[in-house]
């Protein structure tokens, strides 16, 4: 495998880590004001991701940083082009992150309610907008000969991309609800399980429509359709298994099945993209590819060494944190958030 392909794979891996971990974080944030009726319930819900969300969010930061290092032209085109959605997402993430830290530091109901809904919005928007962004990337957007995006804001809100956004939202709701079923108690875990089952149905419906819609929009143009279909197949099987485990009430297996679904979807669409990184709908010759968008061999070599040493270490210590805080959160616990 040449270095450019290796980095395409590593970027995919970082996005899988990001969507897997932030997927349930965003899901928890979106469910919190609904599942949590009383204040201590909402606090318990937030505290299930309390020790983890910040470390999870670094997966997104790292995906962004690694994109800059390995494919600078991709980074430049993507984030200058998808300007308004990115700004909205940053605003959302600001409110979400600050909300976790601030919401329980004042007693007043108005204060806490305000932050709860900001956390809700701060979780919904990134989920939706990353779905919209990924769908637009794989579908192709207007890009000129100088690698600049020329489509404007509203061009990004096409039906296919919006459906991609909704797919992410329902998938993350399911993933988050399953996570909460594993982490809560006092009866809240049963409600979470119910939501997970309902969201599974929603995900199945939306995902099937999205996959079918993806054929003419994306998959029919894929250069490596076989690999893409293998991963999408894994996603479908995992989603069906998820439904079976939910029915059995085996929430841990359901959680992992949901995770594999996220992995399969992400890998499947990135595979459909390869070797492009941002296809141009204006003229295929203007597309950004792993060849014309990548960093120099020297930079890629250094980044490879850095990533191959550090990513496993990160996985070990992040794994340790999940082990340390493996207990369920009760509404009667002393709350930090």
């Amino acid at each position, binding site marked *: 495998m040449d270095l450019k392909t290796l980095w395409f794979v590593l970027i995919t891996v970082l996005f899988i880590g990001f969507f897997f971990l932030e997927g349930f974080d965003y899901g928890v944030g979106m469910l919190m004001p609904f599942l949590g009726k009383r204040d201590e319930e909402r606090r318990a819900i937030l505290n299930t991701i309390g020790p983890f969300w*910040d*470390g999870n969010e670094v997966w997104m930061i*790292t995906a962004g940083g690694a994109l800059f290092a390995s494919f600078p032209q991709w980074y430049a085109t993507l984030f200058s082009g998808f300007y308004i959605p990115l700004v909205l997402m*940053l605003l959302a993430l600001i409110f979400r992150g600050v909300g976790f830290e*601030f919401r329980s530091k004042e007693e007043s109901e108005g204060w806490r309610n305000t932050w709860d809904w900001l956390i809700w919005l701060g979780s919904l928007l990134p989920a939706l907008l990353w779905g919209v962004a990924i769908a637009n990337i794989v579908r192709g957007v207007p890009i000129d000969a100088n690698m600049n995006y020329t489509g404007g804001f509203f061009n990004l809100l096409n039906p296919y991309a919006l459906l991609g956004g909704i797919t992410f939202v329902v998938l993350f709701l399911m993933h988050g609800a399953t996570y909460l079923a594993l982490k809560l108690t006092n009866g809240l875990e049963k409600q979470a399980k119910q939501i997970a089952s309902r969201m599974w149905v929603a995900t199945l419906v939306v995902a099937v429509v999205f996959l079918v819609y993806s054929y003419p929009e994306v998959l029919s143009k894929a250069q490596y359709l076989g690999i893409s279909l293998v991963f999408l197949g894994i996603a479908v099987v995992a989603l069906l298994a998820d439904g079976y485990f939910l029915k059995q009430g085996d929430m841990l297996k359901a959680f992992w099945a949901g995770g594999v679904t996220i992995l399969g979807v992400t890998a499947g669409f990135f595979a459909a993209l390869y070797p492009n990184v941002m296809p141009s709908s204006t003229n295929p010759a203007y597309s950004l590819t792993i060849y014309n968008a990548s960093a120099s061999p*020297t930079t890629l070599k250094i980044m490879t060494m850095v990533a191959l040493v550090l990513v496993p270490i990160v996985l070990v210590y992040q794994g340790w944190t999940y082990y340390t805080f493996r207990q369920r959160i009760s509404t009667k616990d002393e709350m930090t958030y």
Partner: protein
Amino acid sequence: MNPLVLARWQFAILTIIHFFFVPLTLGISILLAIMETAYVRTGKEVYRDAVKFWSKVFLINFALGVVSGIVQEFQFGLNWSEYARFMGDIFGAPLAVEALLAFYLESTFVGVWIFGWDKLSPKVHATVLWLTAIGSNLSAIWILIANSFMQRPTGYTMGEHGVIMKNFAEVATNTNVLYQFPHVFFAGMTTAAFVVIGLSAYLYLIKRGDKAMLDLSVRWATIYGLIGVILVMTVGHFQGQFLVREQPSKMAAAEALWHSEQPAHFSFFAIPDEQTQTNRLDIRVPALLSYLSYGDFHSKVEGIDEVQKKMEAKYGPGDYIPPVGVTYWSFRLMVYSGGLMLLLLLYLWYLNSKGISMAEKPWFAKLMVWSILLPYLASSTGWMMAEIGRQPWVVYGLLKTKDGVSPASVVSGGEVLFSLLSLGVVYIVLTYVGVKLVVKHLHAAPAQTPAAAD
């Protein structure tokens, strides 16, 4: 609406506000780690009380630093896509290393630390705080390595899109960062000290908080701050000498030295006039600038006129001098607030050594509350000098700022204005809310009983 002007304002405002939070995180994470280590070693509750009390301030600040830091990561794409294309091969790598090596470390372990008081043994819990503090300071190293390339490009060749990495070790050990990182690190220690001392002073004034814990915090922070402020000034002095050689345009503007002089005077207070290229009301000391720049009283220091001529010869016609008034005054405000901080800490050290508490000197306690602003003034003006003083370049000698901005056909002035206003307002509001929460935390401290207060 000129997107370039708006993009520059946006970067300046968001980065300065982001850097309100960074130095405190850098400094206070280590101070608290030292205190928690003392708790583990001695088992004395007062150390743990101090850590727990200041951790609230640390974490409010940390959260604001994290969320404003996410924006920084994407700024180079948003408004500066041409810069990203030109610099990506060099700039992306330290940024990615920063994320992989430092952000994961600090963000993962800060969560463990917040939630782990009852879950971990005291030893492991203190270790976790050390890992957080190391992560934060490692992130400073790597972002400053990236910034140092912009100040002093090294280890590169020119390629089709822009700079190409030639020698990563050379990029990572840029002489500039060997000055810049210690400067920022010691500034962090100083900031943490002034925040802890200033907030303690506030508590003495409102007669709240555990007295033993406050006395301890003030004593430790005084020493910590003295080390910080003395070393930040020492490093700063050598950094200045380095910049005289490496970025003469920045230093000539920072000294408002319009014409070369031998020996060169040092200006204490001047009102530079860029129209006439003279200083009004110049209070000066003969030959001192020669000494500060080269360590002797007779060396020649290049003035603005000579630097401009040399740079024209090298880079072609153009204006190579940064805004003189802003650069001159940001430099002076940084240095003067540094000097003032040194004096305040020396006096406080004297009081401590005599066993006199700030509670007995309300005027000084009030002064120390307001002095919390000094390190923030010094950090902000320090960055203004570093970044404005580098103009018209964004990458010194290689890329001008005006050539780094996203093309107007991709990012319109209206879009930049939208992000500037929305993010700017949110930053300001959240900073205000953060300060309010800190003040609330102080007022929630238990009242001092009359017996304990004297």
